[in-house]
């Protein structure tokens, strides 16, 4: 028994199970499979084809890639916006033809030819764009027809001009430079394509037009409702696509100097295969320059390899068709099931051995059961939802957050009337007043905000330093939870977990993994840094009276610790309480020099035992519906008082949880204790029999009102 426990503990400590889910949830995972396929193709072809890596074959490949990559990129842009452009192939061949006519037959200057070709591309794209974007025709069929139309034009013109193209010849230096020259050893055409690809990468990933493009493809109706000019965006993608294909055709013409009746035939299927193989989603919303490049390389290597191996044309086209079908199939399945796969592997419970829970109903227990919180006064019943934390100012006004994203102010002293003090948008959690009377508030999913007495809202911080070992991007704040302020103004706040959103807190409880932390924001420098990493659901924070340390709660380990951020013990953590009967939430000061602590739920023997069996909890998360999982018992309300030595001095209960189940916070103010709960629709007010009737936390923190 003991050895299995040790094994489970070691395994959960040293085997990073949670990384699988975190890696799968990254966006770049879509590129991993195509990229490995590419590496595999290179290795296989490199080993069976002689001279595969020779300079001449590589430079030839680079030039082919410059043209083909541009076409694939063009198609990718259209596909990201939710459309498709099959006419890429015939726009390409038209551009080849007209470039050669311009250069060889009419001997026009190269820049004029290039300009003309680009304008021709724009024109072709504008036709597609008007038809698909503005007239709302089906993209696939429409571009299939325009493919035929442009192709027919190509054939008609080609028949008339082919002999004069063949007999003509250009001596232009520039033409040669584009076709055969290099810049620092890199083929000119590849440099041109590289610059365009880089520009598109920046537009797609860093700039507003690119985001709008992705939005149109991801959810057309939502994009329209968000005010994006959907039709114009779609129009633009077709114009961009055809222009890039025209440029690709120009490069091809410069390289080969001739054209045939089969130039560009079947290019659309190759480009489509490349785009889908790279991982660009059919139907839009997902795609990138990197995906286009990977896909283009993959298809180019495959077709060249097959030709090198002497495989006949029909078989090559069969293979290409089959690869296209397979890629679309995998893509469709992946899109449909990735969330399900992720949900199955993401939850990764850790081993946690809690000390035995204290027996609360034993005689003389400091946790002696009572129903003192059963008959408290009720404030704001039904008017508010989810006051996770409550706080009072010097004028007895009561502030609380609601899950609608408001901070509501109840006017003192009777708290009958209320107003919306500020609307921030996320669910406000822990709150505290700073020296100037600003209300600091942690917003789940958003970060740390400040509301001035004149109701202006300021974002203080929503990011911290990125830690190197973390796969999940832990620089963004996902669940800022409770906050307190040091005498010098530094703000310490907890982030419960970096792995889950607020509504999934119970899944984090099932994991009980150290994925929370304590963060410090310094208003004098405006900098944020992680003060204590790897805490198990870091929750309540309260400054100690010595001005150089604070108490903090870790919910799933049922413990309270004290951290010294200044003074001789700087950087030290001392465990204060390690065997609470429930899961601690917010901590706040009491009037007699001690602390109040809310317990959001009670421990139970079944869940305690399950915490030592990570495999069991993993199976539960995989096979059982979430509402059947083992949860903390949140149907009991409990508030306890403790001192700096960790002794429990008092406890207040609402055993059946009739009025206040799941108490997440409490504030003492002028002889009353105010109770908040993240899932409650009310605030409670309990008369403390022997508390100082004039004590106000703001006075104790910052001195009496000046």
């Amino acid at each position: 028994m003991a050895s299995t426990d040790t094994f489970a503990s070691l395994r959960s400590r040293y085997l990073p199970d949670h990384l699988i889910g975190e890696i799968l949830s990254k966006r770049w995972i879509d590129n991993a499979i195509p990229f490995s396929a590419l590496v595999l193709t290179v290795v296989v072809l490199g080993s069976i084809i002689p001279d595969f890596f020779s300079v001449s074959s590589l430079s030839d490949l680079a030039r082919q890639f410059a043209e083909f990559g541009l076409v694939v990129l063009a198609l990718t842009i259209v596909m990201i916006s939710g459309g498709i452009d099959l006419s890429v192939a015939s726009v390409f061949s038209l551009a080849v033809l007209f470039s050669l006519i311009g250069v060889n037959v009419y001997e026009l200057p190269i820049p004029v030819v290039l300009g003309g070709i680009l304008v021709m591309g724009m024109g072709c794209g504008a036709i597609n764009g008007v038809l698909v974007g503005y007239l709302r025709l089906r993209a696939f069929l429409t571009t299939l027809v325009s493919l035929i139309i442009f192709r027919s034009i190509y054939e008609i013109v080609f028949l008339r001009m082919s002999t004069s193209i063949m007999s003509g010849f250009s001596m232009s230096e520039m033409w040669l430079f584009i076709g055969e020259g290099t810049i620092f050893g890199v083929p000119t055409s590849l440099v041109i394509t590289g610059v365009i690809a880089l520009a598109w990468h920046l537009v797609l990933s860093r700039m507003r037009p690119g985001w709008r493009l992705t939005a149109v493809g991801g959810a057309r109706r939502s994009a329209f409702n968000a005010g994006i000019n959907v039709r114009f965006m779609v129009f633009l993608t077709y114009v961009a696509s055809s222009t890039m294909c025209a440029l690709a055709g120009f490069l091809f013409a410069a390289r080969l100097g001739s054209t045939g009746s089969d130039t560009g035939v079947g290019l659309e299927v190759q480009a489509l295969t490349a785009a889908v193989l790279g991982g660009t989603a059919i139907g839009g919303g997902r795609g990138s320059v990197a995906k286009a490049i990977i896909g283009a390389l993959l298809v180019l290597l495959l077709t060249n390899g097959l030709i090198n191996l002497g495989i006949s044309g029909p078989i090559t086209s069969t293979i290409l068709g089959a690869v296209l079908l397979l890629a679309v199939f995998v893509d469709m399945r992946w899109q449909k099931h990735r969330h399900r796969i992720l949900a199955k592997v993401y939850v990764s419970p850790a081993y946690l051995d809690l000390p035995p829970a204290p027996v609360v109903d034993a005689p003389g227990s400091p946790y002696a059961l009572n129903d003192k919180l059963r008959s408290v006064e009720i404030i704001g019943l039904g008017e508010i939802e989810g006051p996770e934390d409550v706080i009072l100012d010097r004028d007895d006004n009561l502030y609380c957050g609601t899950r609608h994203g408001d901070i509501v102010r109840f006017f003192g002293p009777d708290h009958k009337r209320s107003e919306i003090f500020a609307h921030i948008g996320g669910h406000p959690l822990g709150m505290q007043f700073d020296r100037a009377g600003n209300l600091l508030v942690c917003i789940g999913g958003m970060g740390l905000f400040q509301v001035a007495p004149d109701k202006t809202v300021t974002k203080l911080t929503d990011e911290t330093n990125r830690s190197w070992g973390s796969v999940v991007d832990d620089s963004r704040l996902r669940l800022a939870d409770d906050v307190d302020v040091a005498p010098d103004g530094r703000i310490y706040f907890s982030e419960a977990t970096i792995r889950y959103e607020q509504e999934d807190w119970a899944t984090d409880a099932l994991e009980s993994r150290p994925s929370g932390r304590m963060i410090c924001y310094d208003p004098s420098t405006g900098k944020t840094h992680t003060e204590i990493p790897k805490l198990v659901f870091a929750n309540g924070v309260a400054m100690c009276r010595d001005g150089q340390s604070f108490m903090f709660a870790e919910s799933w380990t049922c413990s309270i610790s004290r951290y010294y951020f200044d003074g001789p013990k700087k950087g030290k953590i001392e465990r204060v309480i390690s065997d609470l009967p429930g899961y601690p939430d917010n901590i706040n000061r009491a009037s007699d020099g001690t602390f109040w602590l809310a317990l959001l739920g009670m421990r139970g023997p079944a869940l305690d035992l399950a915490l030592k069996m990570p495999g069991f909890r993993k199976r539960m998360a995989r096979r059982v519906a979430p509402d059947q999982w083992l949860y903390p018992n949140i149907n009991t309300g409990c508030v306890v008082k403790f001192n700096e030595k960790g002794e429990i001095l008092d406890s207040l209960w609402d055993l059946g949880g009739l009025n206040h189940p799941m108490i997440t916070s409490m504030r003492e103010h002028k002889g009353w204790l105010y109770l908040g709960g993240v899932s409650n629709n009310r605030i409670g007010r309990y008369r403390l029999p022997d508390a100082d009737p004039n004590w106000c936390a703001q006075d104790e923190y910052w001195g009496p009102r000046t």
Partner: protein
Amino acid sequence: MGKMRLSQEGVVFALALSLFVVFSLTLNNFLTGGNLIALVRSVSILGILGLGMGLVVIGRGIDLAMIATMVVSLSWVLSMAQGGTPLGTALLLGAVLALSIGLVSGILIAYADIPAIFTTLAMGLVAYGAGRAFLFQIDVQNTPAGVAWFDFLGSGMLIGIPMPIVAFGVLAAVLALVLRYTRFGRFVYAAGDNAIAARITGIPLRPLIVAQYVVTSLIAFFAGIVMAAAVSGMSTRVYNSTMIYDVLLVVVLGGISLSGGRGGVRNVLVGTLLVGVLLNGMTILDITYTTQNLIKSLILLLAITVDSFINPRDEQTSQQSQGDI
């Protein structure tokens, strides 16, 4: 009001008739017996293919692999027959091949959720490439000599009507009855109109989709038999031509909406008539093959533009998950 409204097939029919009259008056060789027979022959094959395409389009699908199916299966049949296999056996094997192509397309579309237009485009490539590589070696296959019923199917007459036209008429009648009076036919309309609603109602949507593509493949095979009999052979050039767009033109011009659930055999008939007259007229006018392609594509583009105005796409029932394609 209802009586005054012009239906699309009415307009198309009138258009076809007037075009016929104009060609008869202006073109010397148009209204001759030989030309009319040629017209009817080419039209009937297009019409048979149009019937198959019409079926899947009513079910909100599309089958771009029809021509490939036709060419590959018939070329294989003829190459087997040349090699000594009895024609009956060869035809049976060819039908099995066509059926399997349809089955694979249908399964990929219905069960793997790959958009129909993708699947059939790629299926066409795969089928043709594989056929060209493994099933037959030469580009033009001739029909075996001395099979009387096969020749009769191509050039015979039944009470004065050429056999290809009879075949087209019989198939059209059968399909009309199937679409109107059988459970399968009604389900095709239901699925084409609103696939999700049809599925919720309890219609076995996926098997239904597979069945559509199988039937269409078999119709393509049938069209291939008629074609091979009529021209005494099968050429792979048919695959490389733009015939599939002619078939689409027949369906869309006739008035079967690409958004599914609407139209019927009558639409295919008038579409076939118009396209047939048009193609024949252009041939007599000695317009080159590529220019004909250009004209046909422009007309097709015009037709789908008009279609999108007459049958605007319903955002609620169009397939959102597959974007705007």
